[in-house]
């Protein structure tokens, strides 16, 4: 099994506040890794450290064996990591179609048009609204757009930051079904940060529970899901 992503005792934070304390985390190729934890545990910060939005202060982050430390978000994106941030990163004033093309903006191959059709077929709502301003769509549609736009880059690793935030339960389930399909059918490696532990662990292979910037527990997604003690202590269901 090869590691797509490895975090090796990563420290990081904002200003004087250190948020991450020696995070060790790996994403295996073709697997879905799930990071769970309460608000403020450092989930989002972990993703920000990976994609270069904040500076890593200690430890190393490697993508396909190459260190990401010190790289800008632009560079990390070009290496093949797509990031769906909290808030979905919608380009509100631009049309759905333009949003999708931004996903593929750094691709040089000739298959962008056929990929567009592929994702419009997978997300018919987006296809219907391709000429519409992206900001005028519902939260769920914008989350689908964020996912489809990320896929337009043909990433080898997908990072998702609380994709269920603000979505209706039904839409959330649909979203995770899509994520599961992407992983199973395309073999896409995914690192997803979630508070909705149930759904995320269902599609996940390996799970981490973050607490106060440290990995408190880790296990297969299946075992985490069924572990009564972990559920009571950290996941709250």
């Amino acid at each position, binding site marked *: 099994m090869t590691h797509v992503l490895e975090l090796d005792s990563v420290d990081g934070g904002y200003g004087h506040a250190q948020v991450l304390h020696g995070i060790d985390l790996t994403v295996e190729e073709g697997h879905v890794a799930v990071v769970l934890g309460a608000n403020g545990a450092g989930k989002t910060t972990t993703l920000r450290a990976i994609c270069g*939005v904040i500076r890593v202060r200690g430890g190393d982050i490697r993508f396909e064996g190459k260190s990401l430390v010190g790289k800008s978000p632009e560079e990390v994106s070009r290496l093949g990591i797509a990031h769906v*941030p909290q808030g979905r*990163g919608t380009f*509100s004033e631009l049309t759905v179609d333009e949003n999708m*093309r931004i996903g593929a*903006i750094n691709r040089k191959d000739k298959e962008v048009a056929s990929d567009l059709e592929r994702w419009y077929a997978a997300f018919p709502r987006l296809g219907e609204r391709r000429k519409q301003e992206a900001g*005028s769509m519902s939260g769920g549609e914008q989350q689908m757009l964020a996912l489809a736009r990320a896929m337009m880059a043909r990433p080898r690793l997908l990072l998702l930051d609380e994709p269920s935030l*603000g979505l209706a339960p039904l839409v959330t389930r649909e979203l995770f079904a899509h994520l599961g399909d992407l992983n199973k059918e395309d073999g896409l490696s995914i690192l997803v940060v979630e508070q909705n532990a149930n759904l995320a662990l269902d599609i996940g292979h390996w799970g981490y529970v973050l607490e106060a910037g440290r990995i408190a527990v880790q296990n297969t997604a299946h075992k985490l899901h069924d572990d009564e003690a972990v559920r009571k202590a950290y996941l709250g269901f």
Partner: protein
Amino acid sequence: MQLFVEQVLNGIANGVVYGSVALALVLIFRTTGVLNFAQGEMALFATFISWKLTQQGLPVVGAIAISMAIAFVSGAVIERVLIRPVESARSPLNVVIVTLGLFLALNSLVQLIFGTDPQFMPSAFPSGGIELFTSNGRTATLQKGTLGLVLVLIAECLVLWFMLNRTKLGLKLRAVAANPQSARLHGIKAGSMLMLGWALSAAIGALAGSLVAAQRTGFDSNLMQTVLVYALAAAALGGFDSLWGAVICGIIVGVADALTIQYIDPLNGIEVVLPLALILVVLVVSPHGLFGKRTVERV
């Protein structure tokens, strides 16, 4: 009738100028989200460079081209050195204050370097007019210079529209304007795009300034100050995000201004009230302007 047509043509001639400065304002706004109050003075500086080059014996078109190139580079440098360090999501006013400071600094710098005497800028267009019609023994003529300005402005608009809406570069520029953080996560170098936005609009301003100066019998460091007010009115009327809106509304403002001077006596001498009134009416009645997109945002 002849008088009316003459005034409308005068208005168009001025309006085209307002339109081209409004175009630069709108371009910076669309690509960086900043309202650049120093736009007029940046253009003024470039205009003096054009003028200086013609004084050195360069042909007008060549002088303007060089001045545009200098403005392009300076625009990028201004973004990088003055604007970016003060930019912060928390207080967008920082940038506005810097552009106001730049306005004052550039104006003083022009006076310091080039003096305060009025200068004469040669025209890039042939002189003379095209006779349109005669009524009551008086002839209405369209100045070739006005026609030239209109054509240049239309060409500018076409090029910019194509660049913004039909090229990858334009999409990157608009992506950064719409959501810089997200653009970076998609591998777009936000910094370079912001610099490019400023560079392009500075170059457009240089062209506008140089052409405006040639329309006047003489120009000095006050050239762009009223022009900026009218251009802001045009941009506001056009909705701030539409290139065509800026141009068309520039002409509307110019014509309205010319007719006000001619036909509304009490406003004679204080006709600058008109653009300010227009800005006010637009903001109250229809904040997205005549051509602007209505933005709907859902959370």
